[in-house]
């Protein structure tokens, strides 16, 4: 741990503890942030990063412990207090109104009654000076996710904070956009501002952070200089043991294998003014392969998933074919009966009913496909059978829980995701479509899920993975296609794919796309 040179750190945290019921989310956390440093906060999901940050930003009150700001003991009782002290925060999930302009959104959070025009002028000046060009007059609904993040950052900078907290800022950015963000952060550092950078992307942390504090199970397990560590050693600190590397055996003869999922000219009009239309998407997923779909969030992935899963039906029955049969007119149940399985992005409220037990959530997606096993004569649910099957899945996927059959909402995100993926794998589906398989899932669980998806494909199933996490896609895919503005690029074999090529496509810079845009414009 590096000592502080000038005697006073900008922020010092001593013995900060937060208890929720029986869970100690943060257990005597010590943390120092010096002036002009980028300090990484590393940890798996559920390690206590968010809880710690919420206490620093005043949205949670600690049970015990002290916070020193410029050497003075302070109580941060609300976000308002935090802002007055000079702490700003950029959240992972944006809180912007889509139907308002960027400047109006900023004005809402400043709350000081200054006219929109002066705020817009300030925002424009600030954004250009930090290399984050932003048009304050543009409607948020029309902006890309990267641009929306800029609004959040500018909004935070307008309050001239001393400490800026960034929660997983690159999870929604293309590699090129992330590079831009890093330049801005370095510039802020050179001005003497401090940054607390929360991430699970170890390469990034090594690249831009000066120091790192690693949390595990609510405790600080170490302080280090990330530049002197390897990604593997950082991961070991986070997880506590070496993360099992995902193994992907090469597939052979894939060209001759039968396509189990065929998408032909799939087109969908936008359902709301802010949703993305799907434009003539075609894709084949063959038995034995994993195809990855990359893309920045909000480029039509959600709409695509709904169309493929059958939550939304197609007029052209042949635009989605499963195991050689037209499925475009079939409901999600019909498509499941053809052998397909689906895992949506949102876990609570979409993939699982929050206030229902895990065994009941098993029934959610399998009441029709396993009708004989789980539902008896006259529609009676065989509670013994669903309980046994859910316990089998819990054991196979190593789902950790506090009760034998808890409500879905009682599980951590990673454990619930393991259950939801396991619920589908347990069926041995011949087509598996997964949206964001490891979003917000800790490293250990993510590796487990990825390995399971690869193994499913190698046993002869077709696997389609939609993900924003490029590392993940490069790890598990046999070919990667990119979705941008509702269009899907050709799938490129993994041997030809590079981060740079995929990144350019994610930004919409493909010759094929350009032509198409001209046609439709």
């Amino acid at each position, binding site marked *: 741990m590096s000592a502080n040179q000038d005697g006073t750190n900008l922020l010092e945290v001593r013995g900060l503890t937060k208890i929720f019921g029986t869970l100690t989310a943060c257990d005597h956390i010590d943390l120092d942030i010096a002036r002009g440093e980028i300090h990484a906060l590393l940890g798996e999901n559920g390690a206590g990063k968010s809880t710690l940050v919420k206490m620093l930003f005043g949205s949670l*009150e600690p049970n015990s412990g002290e916070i020193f700001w410029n050497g003075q003991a302070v109580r941060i009782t*609300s976000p308002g207090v935090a802002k007055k002290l000079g702490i700003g925060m950029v959240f992972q999930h944006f809180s912007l109104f889509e139907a308002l302009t960027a400047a109006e959104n900023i004005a809402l959070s400043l709350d000081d009654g200054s006219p929109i025009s002066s705020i817009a002028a300030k925002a424009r000046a600030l954004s250009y000076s930090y290399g984050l060009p932003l048009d304050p007059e543009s409607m948020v609904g029309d902006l890309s996710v990267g641009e929306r993040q800029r609004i959040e950052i500018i909004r935070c900078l307008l309050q001239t904070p001393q400490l800026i907290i960034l929660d997983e800022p690159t999870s929604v950015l293309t590699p090129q956009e992330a590079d831009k963000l890093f330049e801005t952060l370095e510039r802020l550092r050179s001005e003497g501002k401090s940054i607390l950078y929360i991430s699970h992307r170890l390469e990034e942390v090594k690249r831009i952070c000066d120091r790192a504090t690693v949390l595990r199970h609510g405790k600080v397990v170490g302080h280090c200089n990330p530049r002197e560590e390897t990604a593997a050693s950082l991961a070991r600190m986070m997880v506590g043991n070496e993360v099992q590397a995902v193994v992907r055996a090469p597939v052979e003869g894939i060209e001759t294998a039968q396509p189990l999922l065929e998408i032909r000219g799939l087109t969908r009009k936008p359902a709301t003014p802010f949703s993305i239309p799907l434009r003539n998407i075609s894709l084949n997923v063959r038995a034995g392969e994993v195809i990855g779909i990359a893309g920045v969030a909000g480029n039509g992935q959600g709409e695509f998933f709904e169309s493929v*899963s059958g939550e939304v039906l197609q007029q052209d029955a042949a635009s989605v074919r499963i195991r050689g049969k037209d499925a475009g007119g079939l409901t*999600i149940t019909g498509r499941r009966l053809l052998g397909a399985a689906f895992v949506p992005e949102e876990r609570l409220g979409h993939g699982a009913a929050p206030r*229902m037990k895990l065994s*009941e959530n098993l029934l*959610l997606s399998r009441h029709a496909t396993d009708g004989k096993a789980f539902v008896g004569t006259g529609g009676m649910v065989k509670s013994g059978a669903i309980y046994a099957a859910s316990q089998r899945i819990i054991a196979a996927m190593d789902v950790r829980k506090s009760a034998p059959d808890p409500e879905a909402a009682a599980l951590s995100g990673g454990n619930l995701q393991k259950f939801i993926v396991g619920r589908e794998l347990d069926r041995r589906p011949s087509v598996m479509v997964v949206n964001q398989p490891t979003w917000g899932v800790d490293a250990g669980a993510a590796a487990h899920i990825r390995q399971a998806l690869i193994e499913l494909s190698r046993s002869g199933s077709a696997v389609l993975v939609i993900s924003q996490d490029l590392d993940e896609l490069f790890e598990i895919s046999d070919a990667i296609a990119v979705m941008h503005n509702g269009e899907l690029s050709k799938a490129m074999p993994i041997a030809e794919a590079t981060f740079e090529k995929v990144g350019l496509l994610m930004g919409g810079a493909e010759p094929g796309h350009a032509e198409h845009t001209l046609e439709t414009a």
Partner: protein
Amino acid sequence: MMRLELVKRPQRSALFSALSPFMAFVLTIIAGAIMFALLGVNPLTAFRIYFIEPVSQVWQLHELAIKAAPLILIAVGLSVCYKANIWNIGAEGQFIFGAIFGSAIPVLFPQFEGPLVLPLMLLLGMVGGAAYAAIPALLKTRFGTNEILTSLMLVYVAQLFLDWLVRGPWRDPQGHGFPQTIQFGDSAVLPELMPDAGRANWGFVFALIAAVLIWILMSRMLKGFEVRVLGSSPRAGRFAGFGLNRMVFFAFLLSGALAGLAGISEVSGAIGQLQPVISPGYGFTAIIVAFLGRLNPLGIVAAGLVLALTYLGGEAVQSALGISDKVARVFQGMLLFFVLGCDTLIHYRIRLIGLALTKPEAAAKLEAAPKLKEAR
């Protein structure tokens, strides 16, 4: 200036959720005592006449069963709707249409007799209630109308339709101009359970059977699971492949059929003919019964007996103390008010917000509010 805000509690107490109906009952008693005192009646005397005397003899228990039967039948059907987050407020109208459909046989074919008559009437009653409930379901699924408004408005249509029927085409020609149909023949009357002990008829048995069947449906069957999923997480329900539109029809048809069964049972059992008014608001009171019973069919049986007592008590205080029997409505209203109030305060707590604060401070307070509770 002060303003009231409801702030969601981070945890709700399972104990208090279960106790809520009982707390509501106690609060109703307290408020009722104040009301009786203001009316110049000794509350203790009034309560004895209202709550104790109507159930102190066996024949009176039979009267209680007669009043409770339609309440329970309707309320168990409504509980399925409400669990599915579908708001059928029009059970009163479905009750009336069940009665009209079922009565068609004894009124139009009085010479048709035999053991088939009654089952056919009951069946037609269920069909009538279900058909009438299908109207708001159709409007909701086809045009996106609000089922609360349409189902409620259809109640008044049903009441006026019945009124027209018994004054017009279905009036008893030998009835000296009274607005009522002929008395049903013997084979069209729902038999009494124990004729020597009291008047209670098979309607109460139907209510108990319906409660048990709906309890099995909701807790043991795939269909009940579908109701609960669609009611609590509609998106997860869609992912499961459950259709929301189909559920709207299922819930409305089921609750309509049970309300219709209650209607024909009431007419062929307790009344024996159609008349302009056949229900003292059973369809609306059943909404209170459903919530007082926690939308649980077995709880609804208990709640139905309690609400039936408010009807009997109202009649008792009217004859014994000369107080209007509208007092029954007051008690029912207070019960619903207090049970909803208790439920709200179990899920939320009240905060007083001073408007004198500047906006950011108030906002900060609001943000901090739920967390203070967690910190304790």
